[in-house]
């Protein structure tokens, strides 16, 4: 009697135990792919995630980034890779949307298990990618301009910034142009972070030359008709007009400034004169406009590495010249691959530690990362748009000057909020 009752009680307990055991086995099986994937990651290819806006307003620039990044990867693999491990580039379209950029970065980290992330092409998307990488301690090398990413509250030990900052670019253009063309300045500014950062950069650099701001005229992002701003600029009679806008806005502003005849009375400058914008806008609209850029292929007659990079790019892509943002894609990938090879490891901390000490010259002369914020200290090229004597469709700028890399042109570590110096 007692036996049978015991037996009866034992049954459900057994059942429960069996379910538990089964559950544990199930979990092990479910977990197995993760374990094997992690083991695989040590020996399989080095995976680099590359989120960039293949669709949206900057798709032309983004596609050039991808082409140049693939070139860097091919080169690395042709050279045997690292320990026999080849590199694999995982390109994802972030649609120029920060929410999509964050989702894609999560996909790259959580599903594809990438070793690190390089990419982005706007201030907002790079900040969102950085936020995701920072929380997961994944190394991120940004190849797009932003001032905010270097500031202590966004930055992390795993954040690197390969591109120039608006502060440095605007400063370099100001240092070149302001002493030459007069003291009275009008800014025509796209009303968002990028525009404001550019104006701030100009004004800071302009103080040294006693520049006088007549007006900072703000226009909404995506303005197509500038005719209401132009008579006011005419009436202010400035010596210099600075176009602090980007992409399509810059092309439209340049066209209308030209049509309005403003160039006869004042020098027009743009902080960032993009190769792709100039090609889209045409020679006449940009005629005589002066600006800064991170790279122009025409550097090749004075910088040997530029010549090597251009030739490789031309060979790979039917004679096309690399653009400024394209070149950043190349440099962004090459620096992390170089660091992996030197560190003999793909872990974020080891790679970051090597990158901090690295001096490199991949395409535009010597560069290195500043220790406090991992900003790449590099030269700024001052160019002027050509309209005559162009050899071919790639020949659009004259290189006027190269501002040598100098940490003193960056905002100080202290100003960015970095407590620990170097």
């Amino acid at each position, binding site marked *: 009697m007692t036996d049978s009752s015991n037996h009866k009680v034992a049954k459900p307990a057994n059942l429960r135990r069996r379910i538990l055991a089964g559950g544990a086995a199930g979990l092990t099986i479910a977990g197995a792919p993760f374990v094997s994937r992690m083991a695989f990651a040590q020996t399989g290819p080095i995976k680099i995630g590359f989120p960039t806006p293949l669709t949206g307003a900057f798709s032309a620039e983004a596609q050039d980034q991808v082409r140049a990044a693939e070139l860097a990867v091919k080169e690395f693999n042709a050279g045997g890779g690292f320990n026999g491990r080849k590199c694999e580039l995982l390109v994802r379209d972030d649609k120029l949307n*920060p929410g999509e950029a964050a989702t894609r970065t999560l996909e790259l980290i*959580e599903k594809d298990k990438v070793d690190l992330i390089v990419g982005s092409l706007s201030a907002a998307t790079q900040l969102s990618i950085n*936020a995701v990488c920072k929380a997961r301690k994944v190394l991120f090398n940004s190849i797009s301009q932003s001032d905010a990413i270097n500031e202590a509250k966004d930055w992390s030990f795993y954040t690197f910034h390969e591109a120039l900052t608006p502060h440095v670019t605007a400063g370099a253009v100001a240092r070149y142009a302001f002493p030459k063309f007069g003291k009275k300045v009008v800014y025509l500014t796209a009303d968002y972070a990028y525009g404001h950062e550019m104006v701030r950069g100009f004004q800071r650099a302009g103080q040294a030359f006693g520049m006088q701001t007549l007006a900072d005229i703000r226009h909404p992002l995506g303005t197509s008709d500038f005719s209401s701003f132009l008579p006011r600029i005419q009436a202010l009679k400035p010596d210099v007009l600075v176009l602090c806008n980007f992409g399509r806005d810059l092309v439209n502003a340049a066209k209308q400034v030209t049509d309005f005849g403003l160039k006869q009375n004042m020098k027009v400058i743009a902080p960032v004169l993009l190769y792709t914008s100039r090609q889209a806008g045409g020679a006449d609209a940009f005629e005589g406009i002066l600006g800064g850029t991170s790279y122009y292929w025409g550097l090749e007659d004075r910088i040997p590495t530029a010549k090597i990079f251009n030739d490789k790019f031309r060979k790979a892509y039917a004679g096309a010249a690399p653009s400024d943002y394209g070149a950043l894609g190349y440099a962004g990938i090459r620096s992390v691959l170089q660091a992996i090879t030197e560190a003999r490891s793909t872990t974020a901390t080891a790679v970051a530690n090597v990158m901090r000490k690295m001096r490199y010259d991949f395409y535009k002369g010597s560069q290195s990362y500043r220790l406090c914020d991992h900003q790449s200290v590099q030269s700024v090229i001052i160019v002027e748009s050509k309209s005559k004597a162009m050899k071919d469709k790639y020949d659009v700028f004259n290189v006027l000057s190269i501002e040598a890399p100098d940490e003193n042109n960056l905002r100080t570590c202290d100003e960015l909020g970095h407590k620990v110096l170097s």
Partner: protein
Amino acid sequence: MTQANPISSAIALIAQHRVAAVLIFLLLFPLIMPYEALALNILIFGLYAVGFNLLFGYTGLLSFGHAAFFGVGSYLTGITIVHFGLPWWLAIVAGTAASGVVGLLIGFLAIRTRGIYFSMVTLALGQIVYYAFYKAERWTGGENGLRGVTVEEINVFGLTLDFVNPLTKYYVLYVFVALALWLVSRILASPFGAVIESIRENENRTAACGYDVARAKLLIFTLSAVICGLAGALRALHLSIVPIDSLHYLLSGQAVMMCLLGGMGTFFGPFVGAAVFLYLEDVATSFTTHWMAIVGVVFMVFVLFFPKGIWGTLVQRWQRWNNHSVVTK
């Protein structure tokens, strides 16, 4: 007596316990999705579409300003974490409550109008909210978006959970979605739920029956804003950022698309719509930059040939088949 068909009785059981059925489905959902971040996006946007559907599908009011509630929920959750250091769950409450308040204000102004004017007024007020947040750069980060909404681990009943782990994050946010879905189902099953549906069918007659139509509209508008605000709050925690696009009118349009695609006026339809829309977009993006063309064509096909949406069509087919089989027997 008709012999109960096992399939039809199973479906009847699901229809009876719709919240439980949806929740079981969502519990297993991350396992069938290509990656967890996408499953989370669908969970969040599904809830957003469900909240929107309260107003659009059940009350018959087409709002073009619902991104305002989603965005306010997101931003206030983010701001209270970044600037005030609130614990994550309190931040969710704050974000949801804030979008309720904004919903009450916008609703108060918007329900005085009807039809296309209602849509226009909500769109305009939504844009005002967008602009206000865009300009308040010190608080919201403006164009760059709000960063630093980072929650690395959370404590629940003495348990410490790793919130960076995607599955943990999914199931934590799932609890909030579950509560919201139960609430929505409860609202729809209540007498008040019948009132809003009768407003959709015939507003004058509802008023003639003695119901205060204006108050019912304002209440459902606010409730809809609260649900959408909760979805926004969860997104802030999911992405650890709040992009300014969260307030953009395109996101308001997305809610309409998701509802139409899935089936407006059905409980689960908006979820299906959100899942199909986001999954299709994700898949199409990975092999072509012309993903918009594919999503657009699929959307048009459904609007033209399945005006009741995916889920709505399925429900209709089932009802017809069920009635038919009952009659023949």
